[in-house]
């Protein structure tokens, strides 16, 4: 009788997740808990980290079948891998974004290219440690600090690396307030950080309406590989700036963006299963992603310093790091570091120019990369 009962309980326990627990699950659950902690306690990009962290915890509980066909996380991941979610995120971002600071400061768009050296440093290092050139390109694009674009390029070049690359891209974007400031301080003097910048001009409604039409036309003409994303960004922006479809702009910028963020973050977190995620390759990609962010931040600051050699009216080199993209996190970091050096400095509007240009910089780099590698 006792033996029968013990065997019944053993069989019952074998059907729960407990029997399949291993240290990898514990480690990944701890990673998820840290993300949720950072989101709630430290307020580090809670919109991203809360969903990623929570689903990372859940999928690492053995027995969880949310990522199997029939599970909701599985369908969320399909939306990402079929490239449905990234363009819809861009639609929402476009509807939420005022491109005025970028339109008003044409010379600062150069920082949107300058802050992307990290893409190429990571690409070359990835090739050196044995990744294929397509995989290296996908890893490099982490340095573009643009989540939807990183997903898009990865799905074209190395879809098998999507979990690692999307996790690295979104995690580093959320952790930019920790990654960027030391690099920015290292490369600038206190006097440079204290530079104040003159107020930028007002942009007319006509310019704001023409901007998305012109850019969408040019991108479709010259960069068809990345046109699906940029076109949606510009459509969202046209909805906003036209002023005639306020409810559509609000739906795109609030409702659609909210739903897509939820789908995207749970999908990304659900890829962080210990059995597939805890590999040397993941560590290499995560390491290369950090290198890309550090070099991107540094090259943006240095590009701004080089520009200062030629400009009569100096710019604060801290806005250079915002050119890495990651709207508006990087612009906020530029503003905060400048404000710490000079409490009368309000650089947020100035930093938004290169920050928005960084989105185009990443799209251009990604588009050229896809074209050079013969991918459409």
């Amino acid at each position, binding site marked *: 009788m006792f033996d029968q009962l013990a065997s019944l309980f053993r069989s019952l326990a074998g059907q729960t997740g407990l029997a399949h627990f291993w240290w990898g699950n514990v480690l990944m659950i701890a990673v998820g808990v840290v993300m949720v902690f950072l989101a709630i306690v430290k307020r580090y990009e809670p919109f991203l980290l809360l969903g990623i962290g929570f689903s990372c915890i859940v999928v690492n509980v053995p027995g969880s079948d949310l990522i199997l066909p029939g599970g909701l996380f599985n369908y969320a991941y399909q939306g990402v891998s079929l490239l449905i979610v990234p363009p819809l995120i861009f639609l929402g971002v476009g509807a939420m974004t005022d491109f005025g600071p*970028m*339109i008003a400061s*044409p*010379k600062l*768009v*150069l920082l*949107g*290219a*300058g802050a*992307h*050296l990290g*893409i*190429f440093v990571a*690409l*070359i290092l*990835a*090739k*050196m440690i044995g990744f*294929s*050139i*397509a995989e*290296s*390109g996908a890893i490099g694009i982490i340095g573009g600090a643009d989540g939807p674009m990183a997903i898009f390029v990865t799905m074209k070049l190395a879809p098998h690396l999507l979990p690692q690359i999307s996790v690295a891209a979104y995690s580093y974007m959320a952790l930019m307030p920790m990654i960027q400031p030391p690099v920015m301080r290292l490369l600038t003097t206190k006097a440079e950080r204290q530079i104040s910048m003159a107020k930028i001009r007002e942009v*007319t*409604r*006509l*310019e704001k*309406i*023409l*901007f998305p039409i*012109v*850019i969408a036309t*040019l991108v479709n003409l*010259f960069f068809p590989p990345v046109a699906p994303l940029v076109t949606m960004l510009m459509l969202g922006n046209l909805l906003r700036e*036209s*002023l*005639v479809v306020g409810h559509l702009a609000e739906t795109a910028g609030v409702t659609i963006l909210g739903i897509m963020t939820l789908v995207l973050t749970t999908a990304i977190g659900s890829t962080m299963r210990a059995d597939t995620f805890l590999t040397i390759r993941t560590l290499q990609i995560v390491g290369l992603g950090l290198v890309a962010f550090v070099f991107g931040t540094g090259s943006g600051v240095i590009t701004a310093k080089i520009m200062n050699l030629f400009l009569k009216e100096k710019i604060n080199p801290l806005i250079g790091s915002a050119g890495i993209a990651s709207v508006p996190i990087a612009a906020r970091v530029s503003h905060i570091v400048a404000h710490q050096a000079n409490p009368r400095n309000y650089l947020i509007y100035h930093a938004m120019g290169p920050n928005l*240009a960084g989105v*185009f*910089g990443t799209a*251009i*780099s990604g588009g*050229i*990369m896809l074209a*050079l*590698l*013969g991918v459409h």
Partner: protein
Amino acid sequence: MITIPDSLHGALLLSVIDFVLSFFIISGIGVILAVLPVVNRFWKIDEEKLRRGH
């Protein structure tokens, strides 16, 4: 069609071409943005009218 070789040399080539072209193209966007205010001389939009729905 010539493609980039899957080697370190290819990675360097891809990086240099991409980085330089990115600067060139984004400069082009800068030029377009710089000339955009010219349109204000020819056409004005009444924001209030737009907000009111004409």
